[in-house]
Structures are given as C-alpha cells and as structure tokens.
C-alpha cells in the first residue's frame, strides 16, 4: 500500500477538536456535489438548504426549537455512551415520556400552569426512565444486549402510543383522527419571545447541559462511569459497580428522552398524535457522537442537526426534493466523523514503493 497508518505516540488533541469540523466541511462539500448530481444549481440549492432557515428571526427560533429535544436526548445519551452503554432506544423512551406527560396534561388540566408543567415534566422523565429501566434490568440481571432490547422497545412504544390515540385517549371531537384532545393552555410551554415559537424547553436543555458537564467532568460518579466505559476489568478492580453504571447510563438517557417527549407534546403541537415518533431518538445518537459526547459539542451539533432537518423541509418546498434528504446528510456527517476519527490515534504516512532503506 502506498499509504500507511502509523500509530501516534501520543493521541492528537488537535485532531480531536478538528475532526468534527472537518467532517462538517466534507459533508457540506458532498452536499454541493449531490445537489449538482440531482440537477439543481448547487450554489442555489446550497443556499436554500443551509442558509434559508437562518435568514429570519423566526427561522432562528425554529432552529432552536428543533434543536432542543435533540440536545436534551443527546445529553442523556452521552452519559451512557461514555460508559459503553448503548442506548439505541431513546426514540421509544421519548414516546413514553410524551405519553406520560399527555396523561397528566389531560387528566389534571385544572391544575395551575406552573404546577401542571412541573408535573408533566416529572411524568415525562419518569416515563422515559421506566422504559429505559426495562432495558437496564434485562441487561444487568440477564446480561441481555441493550442495543437489541432498547430497539425492540421502540417498536412496542410506537404501538403503545397508537393504542392510546386510537383508544382511551382519542379525541371524541376529533373526527376519528388518531389524536388526543388539544391541551389546555396551562399545559403548554410558554414561549420565550412574542411571535416566535421557541419556548421554555430551551432553557431546560441548557440547564441539563450544565448538569451533565458537572456530572461527567467533576463528579466521582461520572469518573466511575468513564472507567467502566474504558475498561471493564479496571472497573471491577477498582470496586466500581458496572451494574450501577449501566443503570445510571440508561436512566439518564431515558430521563432526558422522556423530558424531550414532554416538550414535544406540550410545545407547538399541543397534543399526542400517532405521528409522535419522528426519529429524534435516532438523530440524537448522531448529535451525541458529532458533539464528541461533550456538552458544549452537543449544543453545537444539536443546532447543526436541526439545521439539516429544516434544510430538508426547505428542499422539499423549494427544490422539489424529498425531505428525507436531510437524513441523508445526517448519515453522511456521522460517516465522515467516524472515518476521520482514526487520525486522532494514527497518522498517515506515504511509504512509497521501496520497503528497505539502506
């Protein structure tokens, strides 16, 4: 081979920070080419996809609105991923959070706003934690792979939501559509600025980002989870419980996904519908990774991912391309990041044709 990978004596900190940026750049470049291949003017398409959403204050607000659940879920996931706990079922935990919050919203709609919203948030958190807890239980008690269990539970959660909106919680005046009643005003999250849809959930997300930072980098529990993620045997040697890490990792993800689910139903939507599952749980995995499992990185990559979603909608509107092109970009972004990561531990060397030096 002409190019060889050579292990660096010390991991490159520079590459650690640059590779997410590089992968974004490469994704954008690919986007450029992709638009061209699809027969659109690349520069115009680029502008429509990536710039349009940011042109108005309404657009920026939508960006933050969309980013919020992604940031929330990714924050929770990052804690688990650092401990090598693969929670792939955040989508299901999101749904359970939405269901729980909806239940509270519908049945306690006479509570004052502050109380109701708090109750809904707690319910959302508990709902997500319950769903993640099933996975944690099966993993710690029966050693069952958490990837597959949490994923299967996503499908179960979708059916569960369907049942609620077709059955007990169906809006009697809803013309038979699978949805609940619209929430009363006191069950809706207050917006932050007049005329813009971004709401309180953004502050909640920022709050949890700070909590996560302290937990991961300053707390002993966070340290213990890190160790169990890096080296199980060292974790046992130190007397740190791997089971605790698994529970904590999954419950953190579940709690955040659950709150995100609550913010979804008590945001602009204002109800639980059969379309509650929108892929945020999976997109958040990418957000967590691109953000290097670091709260600051997650904040920015959440915004980026939201931009890709909005761009997809713009592309559908103005470029006549399916909205799923946004997801294509998301996948590409993660691929590039995963590929560039090798440069943190290895460098490329050109070895040429000769093998022996004098």
């Amino acid at each position, binding site marked *: 081979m002409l190019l060889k990978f*050579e292990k660096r*004596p*010390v*991991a490159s900190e520079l590459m650690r920070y640059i590779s997410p940026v590089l992968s974004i750049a490469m994704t954008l470049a690919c986007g450029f080419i992709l638009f061209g291949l699809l027969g659109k003017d690349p520069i115009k398409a680029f502008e429509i996809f990536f710039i349009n959403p940011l042109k108005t204050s309404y657009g920026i607000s939508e960006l933050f609105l969309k980013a919020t659940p992604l940031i929330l879920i990714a924050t929770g996931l990052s804690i688990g991923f650092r401990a090598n706990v693969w929670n792939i079922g955040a989508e299901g935990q999101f749904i359970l959070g939405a269901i729980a919050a909806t239940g509270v919203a519908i049945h306690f709609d006479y509570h004052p706003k502050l109380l109701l919203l708090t109750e809904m948030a707690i319910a959302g958190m508990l709902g997500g934690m319950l769903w993640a807890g099933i996975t944690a239980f099966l993993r710690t008690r029966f050693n069952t792979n958490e990837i597959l269990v949490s994923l299967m539970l996503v499908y179960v959660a979708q059916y569960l939501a369907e049942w609620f909106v077709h059955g007990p919680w169906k809006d009697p005046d809803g013309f038979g559509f699978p949805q609940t009643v619209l929430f009363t005003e006191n069950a809706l999250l207050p917006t932050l600025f007049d005329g813009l849809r971004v709401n309180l959930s953004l502050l909640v997300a920022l709050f949890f980002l700070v909590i996560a930072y*302290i937990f991961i980098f*300053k*707390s*002993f*529990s966070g*340290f213990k989870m*890190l*160790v169990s993620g*890096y*080296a199980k*045997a*060292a974790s*046992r*040697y*130190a*007397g*740190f*419980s791997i089971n605790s890490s698994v529970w904590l990792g999954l419950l953190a993800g579940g709690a955040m996904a659950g709150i995100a689910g609550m913010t979804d139903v008590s945001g602009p939507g204002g109800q639980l519908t059969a379309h509650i599952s929108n892929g945020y749980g999976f997109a958040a995995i990418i957000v967590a990774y691109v953000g290097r499992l670091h709260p600051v990185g997650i904040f920015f990559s959440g915004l980026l991912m939201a931009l890709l979603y909005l761009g997809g909608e713009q592309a559908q509107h103005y470029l006549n391309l399916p909205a799923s092109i946004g997801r294509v970009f998301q996948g590409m972004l993660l691929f590039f990041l995963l590929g560039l990561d090798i440069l943190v531990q290895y460098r490329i060397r050109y070895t040429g044709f000769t*093998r*022996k*030096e*004098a």
Partner: protein
Amino acid sequence: MNTMASSPTPLLELKGMRKVYQTVVANDHIDLCVLPGEIHAVLGENGAGKSTLMKMIYGVTQPTAGKLFWQGQDTNISNPSQARKLGIGMVFQHFSLFETLSVVENVALGLDNPPKLKQLAQDITEISNRYELPIDPFRSVHTLSVGEMQRVEIIRCLLQEPKLLIMDEPTSVLAPSAVRKLFETLRQLAAEGCSILYISHKLDEIQALCHTATVIRSGKVVATCTPANETPQSMARMMIGKDLTAYKHQASIPGETLLKISGMSCASNDPFGIHLNNIHLAVRAGEILGVAGISGNGQKELLYAISGEELVSQSDAIQICGVNVGKMNARGRRQLGLSFVPEERLGRGAVPEMSLQDNALLTMIKPVVVEHGLVQSDKVRAYASACIEKFDVKCNGPQSEAQSLSGGNLQKFIVGREIMQDPKVIVLAQPTWGVDIGAALFIRQTLLELRNKGVAILVISEEIDELFEISDRIVVMADGKLSPTKLTQDTNVEEIGVWMSGLWPETDQPTALAAV
C-alpha cells in the same frame, strides 16, 4: 552433546539485521549464525529485541535493513507461508491456537496444504508417537492443559519437516518435569539434523540444553558464547551488563495474621477456568509469603477472590485484619487496608487511555478526595505527582496517558500508587513480569522494605528464583489446591519444582471438604 554436523555452510545466517519502528530501534546490526543440527540460544532479558528478531526470520515482519542467508543463499522472507516452505517452523510463546477448534483443525490452519482432516489426524498420531508427545487429535483445544497445547504447536511444526525450529520462551508455562521432556524431544530433533533457535532468558536451561548462545541487549548483539563453558553469573553479566546486586535481607519476626483464608472452595466463573479447592492461607504482618506455580492453576481465581473482584459465598472464608470480607467488594476491602497489584497492567491495573492522575484515583481511599460527590482534582494530581517522584516513574508528568509509559514504568507507578495507600496487607501478582531489570530490582527491594515495616505481603509469581529471593515462606499452587507452606530456608528450587506438578505429601492440613 557433540551432534553438530560438520558441514561448513550455516543453515541460517543474519548479517546486520536492523528493525526500526518509528523512533524505536528494536534490532540494531544483529549478526547471527546457526549451523545445521545446532541448538542455538538467543539470550536476553524482556524487551531486548529477541521476539522482533524471530518475527523477521519467520516472515511476520520485514527488516528495515540487513541480509538474511538461508543455506548460503541471500533470501527475503516476506511472509510466514514462505518461511514454512523454506523449512522454518515457529512455536510461539503465546500459543497460536484457536481454543474453540479441535487439535486437527488447528494443525490444518497452521499448514499450507493440509491433507483431509482424517488423514491429517493419522499423520498427527504418527508424529506424536515418534517423539513421545501424546495428544488426541479430535479434542477441543480449550480442554487441553498448557503442556498439551504446546505439544500441538510442536507437532504442527514437525509435520512440515522443518530444518529450523524457532522456540520462543517455551518453558515459561511448563512444570520442571515437562521441561525435561521437552529437552529430550529437542535433543532428538537436533540429532536428526534439525536446528533449533531457542529464545529464553532462563540461564540454567540454556546451560543444560544449548550448544551456542547469542546474547542480545537493547537490540544489539553483545556476545556469543558456548554455554557449557560459562556460569549462570557470567551469562547474566553479559545479558544485563552488570552484576546483580544482592538484596538486603534482614530477619524479621512476623506479627499477627492480617490476611487469612480458611477452607475456601469456589467454582470459577470462566468456563475454561480452574476451581479452587479447600484453600488455607495465612499471611502475617512483617512477612512475605510467596505462592509459586505455573499460571493457569487457579492463581487467577484466587486473586479475584482475595481482591474482591469476585465475591465468595461464605463471608468468613476470607478475613482481612480479622474482618470477614468474603462478600465485600474491592473498595470495601481497600478501606480495611488491602492493596492489590494485578497481573494485567493495562486494562485492569490501569486504564490505558486515562492519565496517570486519573488512574491514581482508581484505588485512592486516602487521602479523601471526594467531597459532596465531586472530585478534588488538585489533591489527586498532587498524589500522582508524589507517586511519580518517589517511585522514579519516567513519564511526561501526571497527565501522561497510562499507555504511553513503558511496562516497567507503569508497573512502578501502579506498585507505588498501591504502596502510598499505606496498606496493612498488599497482594502482588507477577510483580516484575515484562519489566526491565532495573525496575524489577527496585520493586523487589521496595517489597523487602515494606515487609520490614510490618506490612503483610502476598506475592504470586511464576519466577521461582524471585520468590526465593524475597519470600520468608513459600507455598505452591497446583490445580486449584495449595501445598503445605514451608520456610524458604527449609526448601529449595528442586523441591518446589516437583511440587508444582501437584506432587506434594498430604500433611495434616485441616480438610474441610466443601463441595466445589
């Protein structure tokens, strides 16, 4: 031992072999000459560059410079398959066997054009009879003992009728009786004209077996000699470059029992592991108890039980400073004054990707550095820095990643970290394995000093010599059982060697025969 053929053409000749890995020069201008039918030792301590040299001869790696002559022809061995075709066979130190496959499947994988499995099984049986290496071809490798596994490796090489057999540290996993058997086989092979390259750091074996020895130190050849004309001391001097200093051994009067194991029997969690049977052990303050034995006889399981990485069913089976700890986890036992240096540095004793500072935090009970759930990093850093200084750890400060340190330095850090916890009982597994001689001496001396201060020390080691150097009492572990304990001065290497095969006299040890 005059079996060398009188042909003047060397079978294998290396001239100026050099291998550079990035900035590390593993081999530098190595010259080597092996005659047909010769048993040629390559002598050097851990890290001297022996394995790298063998990899080049076997074609696993390519030299950066130098020439290799096979039967007088300038040859370039580019891969193991070519090496095998030339007639070079290699028995690896850490066996190249696949545990879930059978013997015959493993042998088939090691051959380039194997016959059908049935025929191959017959061939295997034939060779095994000829050289007295009994093995059942259809057994799964994971059911074999270590000695049997080595036989498979050797038979695999012999099936290709090698002219040169490379053996990499073959006796590190064998009991003395098995070593004698191996030597007989090797002598038979040499008499038939096969040359043997014998890589080792065990001086007495090389003296007993080999015709010639090439001594390697720091990647260079420092001497060639005839072992029969040398003494172990003179060879050691060539290998290390200086005389071994004797240890300062002062007599001590042991105090109370700080670590006690009473009648412990437990099954291993590993399906390929050894079950422990009725273990009795007592280590007193101010003494070093050495546990001899070949790895794979239950040491792993014993250590898991003592350290708290595995819990046992009876809480009073293990006592530390008089407290029942059988069901207590590792952290709890540390709080009682236990420290433990495990066999695996990277991955168990330390997290490779984390800094030395973070690795210090792994086992820190005192001083207390966790307040309200948060870690006080400056205190941890101070601790790590103190450890680095006191124990002469060569690194780039407490922020260096554990995996960037050499084996010896990382071991010094881990030992230091544990000692700085001021333990009452300290347990060490293979404390000087893979460690350069300077660090090994340092560690052993440190242990002696600890013992003089009244710490109870348990050392589990494969190196009988090391145990004889530092222990007050010795016991042998074989097949999950412990032999009677003897004062070091009352026994010798031969007796311990025999006991390592499990052949010790049954004395009046309390026989609480718990079912495993």
